[in-house]
């Protein structure tokens, strides 16, 4: 067991298993020699401290979901180098508590654990049956950590919403938004990501027909309401003259009414390179096609030199070379209850580039895989008028399976070997003496 231990101090050294472990540098050398650094990096002491940090991070990352949406938490706690943990998360929402503390984020702790693990094996790599279990477990964990890293960096998750009988060829990425500029006949000119919009800066680009200044970006907003007469309004054109979008706090994981933030913004469009205003508009995701599925979406019309453009604030779209038609959506519930017993979408996938046509049923626990992407039944539109499919592309999807196998087999070997040995001695002992040990006192 102790053969994985790196003695961090002389005290930890014992005879037996560790006899073969490399000797640490002589005590007299106090400097930060490479050996010192390596043996610190490889020490079990460091492993334990990192486990404590990871434990705390996962715990606060769970509590934080009372106040913030799951994706916000994932991005601010786990897929980050450091995190500012507000004290508020330890208290119920009706008590307001200011302040917080910095804490290492998931990337940092995970990276440190990985370094620690690799260093430990570097220091004492030795192939033997006794160590094969440990090696396999740790190799599996490396695969697991890399897989989370690859998922965090490269996986793309989107939602494809299809109304019954219609066809869609794009995904919507729900934690990202964009300002889409279209020609009057609906052809896309370009899009601006919300990362740019949030900066409240002047946006100038060759692809844009005009310059754009963001006056105010609201991460989350309530549905626009009619403006009361005399109310202050910065909009000078478009629907913003009649409507006002009230800003709201970002949604939390607890909120079942609203799963995603719905942003709105006041933007001023300007004649390219001149600074001459074409009007300040209110753009809102509430008016996008996404939220006006059954009503007319409300584009903001910007006119520049006789040319008319439609502007939408909408969830980020990724267009696909194929299209999917929803033939039939079935949503069964147990009679007289709301509990769904099954929901399924019968769809037809058409890819004109490869002349492929497929008709398949996608249901809970029965996804469709196509072109490196997987389509899962995720939800439905009100009144069962359409379906929502979760579409995922994850280049690292196989890694957890691999890792799970490796670690499980590794643990079975490692603990199994020790258990077998222990049982052998114990059986022998209990054959020799049956007297219970507890009675001796």
């Amino acid at each position, binding site marked *: 067991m102790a053969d994985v231990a790196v003695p961090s101090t002389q005290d930890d050294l014992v005879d037996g298993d560790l006899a073969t472990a490399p000797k640490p540098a002589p005590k007299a050398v106090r400097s930060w020699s490479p050996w010192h650094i390596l043996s610190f990096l490889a020490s079990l002491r460091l492993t334990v401290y990192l*486990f*404590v940090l990871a434990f705390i991070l996962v715990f606060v990352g769970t509590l934080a979901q009372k106040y913030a949406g799951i994706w916000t938490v994932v991005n601010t706690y786990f897929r980050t180098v450091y995190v500012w943990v507000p004290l508020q998360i330890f208290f119920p929402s009706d008590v307001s508590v200011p302040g917080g503390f910095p804490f290492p984020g998931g990337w940092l702790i995970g990276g440190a654990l990985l370094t620690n693990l690799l260093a430990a094996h570097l220091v004492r790599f030795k192939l033997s049956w006794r160590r094969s279990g440990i090696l396999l477990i740790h190799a599996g964990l490396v695969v697991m950590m890399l897989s989370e890293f690859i998922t965090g960096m490269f996986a793309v998750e989107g939602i494809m919403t299809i109304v019954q009988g219609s066809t869609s060829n794009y995904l919507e990425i729900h934690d990202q938004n964009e300002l889409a500029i279209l020609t009057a006949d609906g052809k896309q000119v370009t899009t601006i990501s919300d990362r740019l919009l949030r900066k409240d800066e002047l946006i100038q680009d060759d692809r844009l027909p005009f310059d754009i200044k963001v006056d105010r970006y609201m991460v989350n907003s309530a549905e626009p309401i009619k403006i009361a007469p005399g109310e202050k309004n910065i909009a000078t054109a478009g629907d913003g003259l009649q409507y006002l979008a009230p800003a709201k706090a970002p949604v939390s994981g607890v909120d079942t009414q609203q799963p995603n933030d719905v942003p709105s913004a006041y933007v001023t469009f300007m004649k390219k390179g001149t600074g001459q205003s074409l009007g300040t508009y209110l753009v809102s995701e509430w008016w996008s096609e996404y939220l006006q599925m059954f009503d007319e979406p409300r584009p903001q019309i910007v006119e520049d030199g006789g040319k008319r453009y439609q502007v939408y604030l909408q969830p980020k779209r990724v267009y696909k070379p194929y299209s999917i038609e929803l033939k039939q959506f079935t949503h069964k519930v147990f009679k007289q209850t709301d509990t769904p*017993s099954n929901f399924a979408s019968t769809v037809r996938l058409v890819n004109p580039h490869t002349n492929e046509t497929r008709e398949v049923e996608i249901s809970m*626990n029965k996804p469709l895989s196509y072109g490196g992407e*997987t389509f899962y039944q995720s939800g439905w539109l009100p009144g069962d008028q359409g379906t929502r499919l979760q579409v995922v592309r994850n280049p690292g*999807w196989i890694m957890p399976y691999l890792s799970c196998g490796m670690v499980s087999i590794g643990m079975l070997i490692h*603990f199994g070997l020790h258990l077998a040995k*222990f*049982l052998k001695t114990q059986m022998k002992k209990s054959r020799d003496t049956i007297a219970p040990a507890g009675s001796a006192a």
Partner: protein
Amino acid sequence: MSTFSRYLPIFVIVPVCAYLGMAAIQPADATGQPRLRDFASLPVMEEGRIKPVDSVARTDLMLLSKIQTFKEGDKKGQPAIKWFLDAIVGKADKAEVFRIEDPQLLDVLGLKPRPQWFRYSAEELEPKLDELVKYFKQAQKIKPSEWDPFNRNVMDLANHYMLCIQMQREFSPPLLLLIPPAAPGQEWRSLREAVQDAQANKTPDQPTLAYREMLSSYMNGDAKGFNRALAGYQSYMRDTYPVESRKAAFETFYNAYAPFYHCSILYVLMFLVAVASWVVYTQELNRIAFWLGLCTLVFHTCAIITRMYLQGRPPITNLYSTAIFIGWGCVLLSLLIEGLYRNGIGNIVASVAGSLTTLIAHNLATDGDTMKALQAVLDTNFWLATHVTIINFGYAATFVAGLLGVLFVLCGVFTKKLDQSLFKSLSQVIYGSVCFATLLSFTGTVLGGLWADYSWGRFWGWDPKENGALLIVLWNALVLHARWGGMAKQRGVAVLAIFGNIVTAWSWFGVNMLGIGLHAYGFMEGAVFWLIAFAISQLILIGIGSIPTRYWQSFGTAPVEPTQTRFTPPVDKRSRKELVGVRN
């Protein structure tokens, strides 16, 4: 070995079997009375599951009154099915089924408190019903999240009262479908639907006629007519739905038998014997406790298998069944430990875990049907059998390690029992349990990830329940590495293992209380209190365990010099020093 000692297992097995056999005998209905038991076994459909009327009656009564029997006048312990039929035909006015504890609400209704019983009849409520309606309307205007206890109690009572009214008006509680499909491919129908269909077609089918006959005979107190109609319908159901009828009859038997109630009695008995063994007749009582535990475990296993048969599912499908399964896992592991060491520690842990988990299960059962049909997301036997079972077994192993840690601390600090051999064996089993728990919780957690990946393309979503499972894995891994790195010795591992109890309880219940995540089964208010109390108790034990060993009763006198075995990690110099220090 004396004769007594040789045949000791038989002296335990026979009485336990006799007890369980006696409990299985259920009195038949008296002649000349309506055959309620037979009526109770009729299969019906509710919330997507075919079950006996008995289960419906019991869950409905449980909802109102928190127990499965009721009192009417002087007659106590009346079966739920009687209340059910009485309520349908409008004769349940005198049945004391409404549980009211709130003194303010009692005051409003002009009722006298009934300590230790708390239940009132519809007749007693009716004089001040207007008051109840008034407060009900007030509470309706407030958001449910802002209700104070009084509002909530008013709403509960009003809803319970309305349920009874509806049972009378609709001839069945809402959601209950009494009439089986007339032809294959059709759906179950409620009695009202069936009567309407019959009126439209002018040809009532046999089930509809039978129910009408049974209910009207019952209303008129015509036991003969009721029994005749019932017998006819029973034979019809046996012919048309043989499997469902058999299952429903079996479930009715299971309900009345209440096997987990007997399990908890036997576990408590086992605990008493196990504790007694530490005082007198150590060896004999220990073996008695062990065999008692073994018998109970077999019975516990049978009860779980019965549930699996009735539900057609792997053992765990909801929070209630986790409690039963985790208890089973703890008992199994502890008895294995006892079988290996035969020093009584396994018995203590098995009996404590068994009694506590059956108690928890009992309290979770008040939520309603414990064998509910599963919603679409969970409708997969493969993952339920693998991920869910393994992760819960991991919980069980972590709890066993934690309970052993508690035993280590309590024995060491307060008694002189923790001598050299117990010290060694306890440290070994704690360490072994943590290893086992690591294996199971890791595999279970990752399998959960694989399920998520397979079902919605996300291996890991950092969802609270996933994080809860990850915390258990992290904690167990931490304990092991701390041990291997020499940062924790035997006592350290024991104390750390106790913290594992809090981590597991958090993952099991705490996460649900956050009210978020795909996995959260439901919010339980009383449970928040118990969870916090449990966490505090464990922290206190950790505090006690951290007292320097020179103050421990055990180390104060008994010389402790653990010899190194191959199983335990080598005791390094520092821990030897610690132990030598103990001796001085």
